[in-house]
Each structure stands twice: as C-alpha cells, then as structure tokens.
C-alpha cells in the first residue's frame, strides 16, 4: 500500500499578521509552522504503516522551493515518512483548486491507495483541497476523520460531523482528510532528523506536472483586519451580573 500525505507550511495564525501594501496578502516577519491538520495526517500515515507494515509513505509539500523542502524534511521525513515531493509554487497566486490539481497530477505519477490531507490549512481556512481532489480523481472521500482503520480493502473512517460521530466505509483508492482528534502528533526523534537528511526528496515545478491552465479560480482582492470588539466591564458578583443582563442587555 502507498499513502500520500500533505505537508503544508503555513504562516502561524497566532502570530501578529501584517497586510501587504497592495492589500492582498500578508507580509513582514512571518512565522511559519507546519499546518496543524497536516501533522495529524502525517501521524495517521505513520501509525497505519507501523501497524500494518508494507506501507510506503510519501509527503507532498507545495510552495517556496527551499522553505517547503525544509518543512517536508523536518516535519514529515524526520518523523518517519519515507520520502518527499516538493512542488514549487507561489503561495499567493494559488487557490485550493490549483493545489488540488497539483495533487491530482502527483497522484497520477505515484498511484497511491490513500491520500491523507489535513482538513484545512490554517492560513486560508478554505477546507476544500481534499474534497476537490477526490472529485478530480473520481474517488470516494471521508473528511474530518477522527479515526482511521484498514479493513479488507477498505478504510473504516470515523468522522466528526455536526450531529456527532459518523462512520463511513470507504473503498480504496480514496481521500481522507484529517481532523484534530485523529491522533497526537509525535515529535521528530533526533535520529529521525539525521536520517531525514538522506531520504529522497524530489523537486518539481508546475511546468513538470503539465497542468495546462495554472490560473486560480478564486482571487483575494482585499484583506482587512476584522472589526474589533471592545472589552466590557467587570462585575463584582452574581447579583450585579444578573441585574445588568436584565437591565442593560435585556437578554435574560
């Protein structure tokens, strides 16, 4: 079995973000982290490989060539993923659709049985790539996974949905998107960091993948800070809280 996992570098949403002068992206001293959900996807691939053996794991990163390569090595290969692929692309001029088409092109080259993708990237927060990819490939999907098991040529996936926990049986090949409670991502062991330096890492460009039209379908034209919310007042006790919720706010 072969599993392709996502390894996306994101600018840390908890850090201070400055909007670029053209208003269309962020700039300045940006801190980058591995996308949280990709860490869950990577951990899931590693656990399935450890449990079942005979599973090859491949991490895909898309973005600035050098920085993405560094993230794929440190965040995926050092943790135990077998090899990596980096596709060079300008993050600001890609959208979810283009990323999904890059994935589809890599899938055509690698023929994985399962693609495990973080459910969303915590920069754009679109939550689209896994589903777009599944449709481009004509594969079934199980999104927002909190548990993944392999059984008789299909995956049994528990999903976090609005009404509780849903279980789907999905035949392979398929796309699974990882949610936060899928697992607790491991730290890379020191030996892993040394080993990662010697693991294969292919570098590709969008031209190599022959995507045809590489134009995005969705463009950010203007970014702004959200309207803020002012801190209100501290109340001294329960009686004052009730009085103000009834009197001023009129909500109880």
């Amino acid at each position, binding site marked *: 079995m072969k599993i392709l996992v996502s390894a996306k570098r994101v600018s840390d*949403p*908890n850090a201070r*973000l400055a909007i670029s002068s053209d208003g269309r992206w962020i700039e300045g001293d940006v801190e980058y982290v591995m996308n949280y959900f990709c860490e869950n996807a990577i951990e899931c691939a590693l656990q399935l490989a450890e449990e079942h053996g005979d599973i090859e794991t491949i991490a895909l990163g898309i973005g600035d060539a050098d920085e993405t390569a560094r993230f794929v090595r440190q965040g995926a290969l050092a943790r135990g993923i077998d090899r990596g692929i980096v596709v060079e692309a300008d993050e600001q001029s890609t959208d979810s*659709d283009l990323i*999904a088409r890059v994935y589809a092109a890599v899938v055509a080259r690698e023929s994985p049985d399962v693609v495990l993708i973080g459910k*969303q990237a*915590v*920069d754009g*927060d*679109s939550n*689209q790539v896994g*589903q*777009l990819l*599944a*449709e*481009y490939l004509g*594969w*079934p*999907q199980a999104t927002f996974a*909190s548990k993944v098991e392999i059984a008789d040529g299909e995956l049994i996936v528990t*999903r*976090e*949905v*609005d*009404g*509780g*926990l*849903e*279980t*789907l049986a*999905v*035949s392979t090949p398929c796309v699974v998107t990882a949610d*936060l*409670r899928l697992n607790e991502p491991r730290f890379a062991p020191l030996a892993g960091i040394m080993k990662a330096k010697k693991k294969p890492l292919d570098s590709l460009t969008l031209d190599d993948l022959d995507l045809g039209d590489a*134009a*995005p*379908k*969705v*463009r950010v*034209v*203007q*970014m*702004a*800070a*959200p309207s803020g*919310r002012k*801190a*209100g007042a*501290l*109340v001294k*006790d*329960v*009686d004052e*809280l*009730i009085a103000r*919720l*009834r009197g001023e*706010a009129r*909500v*109880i």
Partner: protein
Amino acid sequence: MAKVLVVADHDKGALKKITLNTITLARQIVAAQGGSFDVCVLGSGVGAVAQAVAGYGAAAVHVADHADLAHPIAAPWAKVIADLARATGATVVCMAAGSTGKDILPRVAVRLQAGMASDVVEVVQTAAGLGYRRPMWAGNLMGDVVVDTPVQVVSVRASAFDAAEAAGPSPIVPFPADPQLTGARARFVSLDGVTSSRPDLAEAATVVAGGRGLKDRFAQITEPLADVLGAAIGASRAAVDDGFAPNDFQIGQTGKVVAPQLYFAIAISGAVQHLAGMKNSKVIVAINKNADEPIFKVADYGLVADAFAVVPELVSKIKALRA
C-alpha cells in the same frame, strides 16, 4: 442576472434553520444582481422538508428524492446537486458551511468547473465585481475574494446571516435524480449521534460553553445553567480534547461557529481559535478565576470568580427570579 441554487440542510425529517440563513445570502445576491433563487432538497422521503422550505420566496423548490441519497454521502450528493445546477441554469450554488456543506460543495465546484468561496460572512461589492468576504487565519484577517468562473460555489457561515423571513409560496418540483456513480464508493455505517432536548448549538439564542477548567464536573456545571436559560451547551477545544465534552460541542475556528444573543464562557481562557468561533455573539459573559485571561478582552460582562461556586449561585438566583 443571478440564478442562485440553495441546497437545503435537514436532519431527521426536519428543515434545519441554517437553510434559512443561507436563503438570506441568496436574496442578497438577487437584490444586487437581479434574477431569482431556487432551493433544492436531496434525500429520501423528504417531502415534509420541501413543504417547510416552500414558504420563503424561492422561484421553485426542487426535490431529489432517492433511496441512494438517504445519507449525505459526498460523491452522489455532489453529482445530483451539479445536475440540478445545470438543469436550473444556476450561476451560484450555495449551502451552509456545516459539516455537510463543507464535505460536499467542493465536489460540486469541480463538477461545474466553478471556483468556490468558503465560509462566507458577507456579500460585498469589489472593484472586480461581486465578491465574498470570508475569515482567514482563524478570523484574524478578513479577505474579500472574487470567483472568476461563470458558475460560483459558496459555503455560507450561517451565524453571519439573519434567518430569512417567510415570503411567497414556491412550487415544489420533483427532480429525476440519478445518484449512480461508477467505481469506488463510500458507504454509511453508523452515526453516533447525541440526542438532546436542548436547542441545536448552531441555532440557539443562548449558548453556555465550558472550558477545560471544569474538568469532570463539566456537565454538572453547564447543564443546570443551560436548562434554566433554554440554552445549547458548547465547549472549548481543550475541554473536548480532554474528554470532558463530546466533539460536536466544540466551538471555534475548527469546530462550530456561533453568534447567539447571549454567550456564557465558563472557565474558558479565550484562545484565538476559540474566539474565532464565538466573538460575534451579541452579549458575551465570561466567568473565570484568572483575571488575565484573554476572554475578558472580548467579554461584555466579566466575573472573576471560581465557576464551581458562582455558576450554581447564578442558576439558583435566575430560578428564584422566575419563580
């Protein structure tokens, strides 16, 4: 001229209110561009849902009733929605950004060669035409996006739009759904659902949310307050991760996004991720024993106190008022 297709959300034979919030976005697009909107209902035995949504001014309510659509499995649902979009000449396809809409709509977009805007909170006019405002970076930035394709797909943050008021009746039109797909499949196995007499978290006027600090007394503290206020119960990610509350309670950028009239944050610190899911609530009350927690920066009323002591006191005093 716009032709908007709204995909209805429903559960256990009842229309979900988030559909009405989505209809409001459809009406806004129609108001800006002219045209009309349709609603479609997919499922098995969904006549009552169609009836329920037929009083909101849609030009038509299309019903795709088929045994294979009983559960919202993404691939067959996406096929039928895309078929409906083509049949009705839709220029915009939208659905609430709940777990069903998030799962299915991107597949619809691929089928229609459409671009998709996720989790839209506002319809905006941009220099490049009609655009959609949406939160990015966990709500720390708002982005206005334009979709450069003839058909656009939009998932809608329901809490950002008022529920549509009732309007003229709509004809109910059966649609000959063909959900059959060749090749690999996903099969529904089970739903471990929480049955609750409380209102749906996404629809509740009052939400009582608890944090990790409540520990194994999470239910003991939050439930009596929710009962007395007729509120839904929510939780921070930390409380869910540690097993004190079920997953579908989670409020935050990666959980549910709510904007009730009244929000109680009890023993919740107010991490960015959580604030992204509740900061548009009308009135926020924070109860936390640590005055330095960031939740107090967004709260209208803060009470620095031990939740285990003051929440039961709050419950008994509200009860006494109503007695």
